């Protein structure tokens, strides 16, 4: 099926039980990823982006659970309906995940070579020697010098950047068609960040894999994405190709995020901030979830939650302003840039 998207997420709901009943951390998220595409999922902490990523592999930690009615289709297969064994075979093989903090994401008592080789052995008929050889080769591909020696080292003996390269090697070794990277550079120094991003880009070009990059850093978005999905309070609030997003952000939240990035040559006395903070899932306001922090909120915003509407081709936003653009002026509060 060459024309259908590689990944199709539809109406994803993830809920957690709480004292008051079920609380939705991810509330009806839908998006697609095409083959070979590079998509960034952006949002603040607590918006549900990591959970969304985990749900693609059905790894949402209990007591959280993906609710019925959520559909995830990967390469034509229904992930939600998969039996355990095909799911296990898919994980790390066709879809792989790179985690945020490699120091804790790697097993401290096994060598990095062993950990990568184990992935190979689980997903193929390779012998121990073959798997080890492939692991070492992969380490070299991700830019680790002297890979044969490095493979015999333990995670704590490597630097942060090298550990992340190890994670990338582990993710790519079975040649997945989709790689999910959950904040892969957040825990790293700025200079190392650039190296890792370059590596991811290079691997993409080489293998043609799709990349879903989760981040809160717009600089990373600008570097890596061809398309951006912005999430807020468990929902997708804007979706656009990267240039369109940066040039003409529609949703006030996106506007705020872009405005908050400090600029080198702009004359700013204070950094722009979005007032307030993300409400927790059990305290979402009625109507539009962003309205308490929105500079343009008007009466309709409290009454009904906006649907995701088309702004331009391939550009959608969840805001009443799309249909009522004349309302886009500050309601007493400060405007954007």
């Amino acid at each position, binding site marked *: 099926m060459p024309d259908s998207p590689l990944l199709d997420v539809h109406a994803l709901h993830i809920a957690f039980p709480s004292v008051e009943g079920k609380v939705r951390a991810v509330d009806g998220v839908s998006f697609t990823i095409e083959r070979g595409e590079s998509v960034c999922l952006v949002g603040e902490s607590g918006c549900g982006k990591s959970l969304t990523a985990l749900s693609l592999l059905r*790894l949402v930690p209990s007591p959280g659970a993906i609710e019925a009615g959520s559909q995830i289709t990967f390469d034509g297969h229904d992930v939600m309906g998969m039996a355990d064994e095909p799911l296990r075979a898919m994980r790390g093989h066709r879809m792989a995940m790179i*985690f945020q903090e490699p120091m804790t*994401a790697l*097993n*401290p*008592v096994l060598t990095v070579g062993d950990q990568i080789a184990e992935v190979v052995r689980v997903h193929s008929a390779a012998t121990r020697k073959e798997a080890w050889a492939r692991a070492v080769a992969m380490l070299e591909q991700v830019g680790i010098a002297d890979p044969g020696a490095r493979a015999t080292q333990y995670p704590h003996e490597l630097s942060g950047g090298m550990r992340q390269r190890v994670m990338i090697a582990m993710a790519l070794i079975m040649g997945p068609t989709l790689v999910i990277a959950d904040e892969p550079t957040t825990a790293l120094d700025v200079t190392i960040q650039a190296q890792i991003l370059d590596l991811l880009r290079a691997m993409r070009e080489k293998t043609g894999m799709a990349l879903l990059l989760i981040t809160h850093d717009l600089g990373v978005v600008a570097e890596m994405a061809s398309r951006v999905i912005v999430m807020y309070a468990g929902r997708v609030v804007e979706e656009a190709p990267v240039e369109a997003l940066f040039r003409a952000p529609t949703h006030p939240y996106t506007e705020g995020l872009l405005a908050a990035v400090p600029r080198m040559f702009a004359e700013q006395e204070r950094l722009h901030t979005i007032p307030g903070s993300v409400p927790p899932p059990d305290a979402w306001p009625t109507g539009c979830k962003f309205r308490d922090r929105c500079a343009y909120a008007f009466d309709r915003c409290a009454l009904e939650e906006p649907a995701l509407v088309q702004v331009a081709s391939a550009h959608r936003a969840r805001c009443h302003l799309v249909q009522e653009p004349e309302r886009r002026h500050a309601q007493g509060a400060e405007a954007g840039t």
Partner: protein
Amino acid sequence: MRATYRARYGFDDPLIVQYVRWLGMLLSGDLGWSTWQQRPVLTMFAEALPNTLLLVGVAMTLSVVCGVALGAWQGAHPGSLRDRVASTVSFVVYAVPEFGLALGLLLIFSEWLHWLPATGMTSELSMYQPVTARWLDRLRHLILPVLSLTAIASTIVARYQRLAMRDTLSLPFVQTARAYGLPESRVRRQAWRASLLPVITVVGLILPSLVTGTVFVERVFGWPGMGMLLLDAIFKRDYAVVTAGIVLGSAMTAFATALADLAREAADPRLRPA
């Protein structure tokens, strides 16, 4: 009469001289002369040591195996019914003093049920029996003393392994393993390897208690090991044997603790010198 004895055994000399002489003897491997059995102390211990080592060795191995198995089994399903039942039983066994457990086992299995022999390492007529019967006889004598020691030590190991397993399973790398499609059995194996460190540490800790437990257990079951030797020597006022026994006991404990430290380094690469 007493004076002659005192002179012969050197008890006449001032204490400090005796001490220095004793240290010198110790360093050259001579543990002194037993006034009770009229033979070198070293020989007496050389005879008793294998018996104690047999007891402690078997108990130690079984404690670790059973304790780790039990703890890992519990830790993988914390809070379940079997976990709670096992924890309660463990607690009771753990708190009971060794001699209490030994006496109880002796009473029930030997005196009342007559399933297992009461004392000693072998039965009296066993030397006249064929080899297999002799080994079986030895085994039957070994069961109760080993059980007394193992039961208590394994609960300590199990407690630590359970906690370690439960905590390790909630660490991030376990999620990574699952995310890469490792089957649950391999995930647990990875987690178990990472959980070993606290367990090995506690193995080092139970060694001293096994050594001291041996003293009581050997007394209860009449096992001719170092504990029995020490106790008998105390009653016979054979001070050479007593001091040698204390020193040997402490040395063995120290040695075993050092071994445990080595094992810790083997288990967790982060502890190895860089």
